């Protein structure tokens, strides 16, 4: 069952399973049926139309994860516009940059953050319409908001837009090497081709209960949102606070009898190490899916011992393609294995190949860059035609997205990840351009030089910053952490800082990263 537009998954399920529970806020227990979610997102659609939002516009979402933000997301799609989700806790200046960059027409924002966001937008001379939802009004801020603004209003038209499969559906911003985030443009077809592949692999039905751990601005959320809603299953929305609390998350998994869990390995590790997941033996989990970073085998082995009956899939893919390869972890992991598992073989909805810098195929068994083509590959980067063309290799066989990931192809078309060809790293599932951290720290008035490096350790990737200061003295660690907290999203915060009189230089007077990598 494929669809032209992503919101059709919800519309079809609302007809088929009107009274089934579509979504539950895991922390409050509030829930909404398919019929209600469909109707609520229709109201959002009608309101957006009334304030002038048209097909192909963009609309921002700066809200905590909730039934309200889910209904808003579908309402935006139903107008035929694209949703642009951001981390509501990220620095307001960064969010304003994103909303201004892609020219959103309107933004749904948590009321308590609206004024700061408005000020930051004003500094960029941007004036999108802000639609504030106030959680202090009660547990249904969206319904309250709509009731207030719509008193007596009539719908302009009561049908949802029918965008074509190649129309823009969402823009996800990721860390950019120039210091500013860049917007990955994804269409309805990009999303639906992936969702349909997930249906084949997971064979979900209306009895399934999915986790939604990743925030909506993170590409893992595409599976969490659309796969359960396509099949009449229930999605359990895990918000920011609960998502960091392993004991409570473990309770949700057990008590709510979740059947499909999807998160980064870091979160699963947290669950095993701190969540007393092992104290429970009544799991209903059919699938544990993980993506976004390498899962250290030590932790994966422990998790498998605790939840032995589930199937484990390692999913791999950048935001530009979403998941494009997958690997099922074998039933038993050899005692002496410490090497991470492969990223696996290409999913059935993509084509994959390994190429050299000139776009020629690399023989099996040799390192090369993984390139992907097919239905889920992004349109390009918002407003960055040069970056977009640099990201693709085009030849007679098609348009290939260059992932930047160096891999080796082994037997049976199974790929193993070897590293990156640039300065992007993944930590706890988030991609981080080390250059963006450096750009932010250069804004500190006392810092004269800064270089960020990443190290892979058994427990995962850690980021270390070397810096020199104008007066030659080390800065207070509290001051450095505070500066990062206010100038970078939390997921980019460095793990270590090291003060140097001067940073080491190469013969051409550039910062010597190789030297820094060897320093303790």
């Amino acid at each position, binding site marked *: 069952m494929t669809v032209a537009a992503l919101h059709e998954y919800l519309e079809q399920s609302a007809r088929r399973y009107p009274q089934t529970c579509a979504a539950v806020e895991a922390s409050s227990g509030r829930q909404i049926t398919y019929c209600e979610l469909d109707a609520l997102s229709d109201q959002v659609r009608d309101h957006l139309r009334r304030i002038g939002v048209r097909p192909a516009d963009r609309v921002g979402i700066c809200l905590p994860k909730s039934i309200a933000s889910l209904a808003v997301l579908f309402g935006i799609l139903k107008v035929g516009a694209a949703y642009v989700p951001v981390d509501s806790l990220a620095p307001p200046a960064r969010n304003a940059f994103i909303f201004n960059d892609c020219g959103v027409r309107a933004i749904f924002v948590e009321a308590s953050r609206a004024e700061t966001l408005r000020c930051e937008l004003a500094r960029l001379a941007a004036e999108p319409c802000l639609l504030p939802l106030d959680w202090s009004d009660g547990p249904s801020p969206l319904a309250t908001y709509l009731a207030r603004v719509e008193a007596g209003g009539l719908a302009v038209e009561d049908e949802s837009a029918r965008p074509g499969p190649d129309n823009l559906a969402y823009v996800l911003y990721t860390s950019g090497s120039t210091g500013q985030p860049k917007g990955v443009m994804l269409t309805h077809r990009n999303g639906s081709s992936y969702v349909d592949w997930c249906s084949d692999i997971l064979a979900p039905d209306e009895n399934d209960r999915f986790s939604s751990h990743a925030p909506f601005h993170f590409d893992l959320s595409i599976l969490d949102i659309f796969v359960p809603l396509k099949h009449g299953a229930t999605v359990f929305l895990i918000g920011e606070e609960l998502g960091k609390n392993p004991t409570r998350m473990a309770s949700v998994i057990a008590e709510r009898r979740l059947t499909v869990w999807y998160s980064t390995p870091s979160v699963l590790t947290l669950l095993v190490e701190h969540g007393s997941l092992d104290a429970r033996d009544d799991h209903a989990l059919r699938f544990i899916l993980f993506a976004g970073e390498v899962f250290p085998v030590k932790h994966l082995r422990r998790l498998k011992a605790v939840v032995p009956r589930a199937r484990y899939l390692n999913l791999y893919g950048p935001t530009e393609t979403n998941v494009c390869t997958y690997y099922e972890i074998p039933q038993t992991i050899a005692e002496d294995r410490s090497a991470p598992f492969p990223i696996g073989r290409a999913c059935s909805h993509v084509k994959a190949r390994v190429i050299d810098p000139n776009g020629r195929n690399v023989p099996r068994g040799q390192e090369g860059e993984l390139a992907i083509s097919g239905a889920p590959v992004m349109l390009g980067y918002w407003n960055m035609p040069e970056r977009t063309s640099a990201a693709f290799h085009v030849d007679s066989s098609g348009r290939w997205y260059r992932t930047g990931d160096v891999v080796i192809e082994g037997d049976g078309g199974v790929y193993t990840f070897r590293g990156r060809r640039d300065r992007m790293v993944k930590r706890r599932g988030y991609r981080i351009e080390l250059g963006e951290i450096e750009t932010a720290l250069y804004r500190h008035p006392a810092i004269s030089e800064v270089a960020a490096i990443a190290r892979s350790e058994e427990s995962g990737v850690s980021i270390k910053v070397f810096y020199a200061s104008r007066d030659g003295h080390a800065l*207070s660690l*509290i001051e450095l952490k505070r500066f990062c*907290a206010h100038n970078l999203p939390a997921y980019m915060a460095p793990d270590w800082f090291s003060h140097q009189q001067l940073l080491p230089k190469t013969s051409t007077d550039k910062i010597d990263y190789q030297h820094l990598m060897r320093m303790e």
Partner: protein
Amino acid sequence: MNAIQIRTMARDFILKEFLPGERPENLTDSTELITDGILDSLATLKLVAYLEKSCGIEIAPDELVPENLNSIAQIANFVQSKQPST
């Protein structure tokens, strides 16, 4: 344990574990620990485990919120409220 003892204990632990090399006087009772990025979520869990062990209290999952833990002063108030009154 009185408030001063709890503050000292929490301050020593945070300095040792999460702020190696920091001058102790820079960490005040009102320094914002979570909102200023000094404690990330994993560090918060370590701090809570330490408080539970050394103060003989049990902190419920629902209590792991910034309102209880965002400064040394808030930690002291919170831990005191958890101790049985003598």
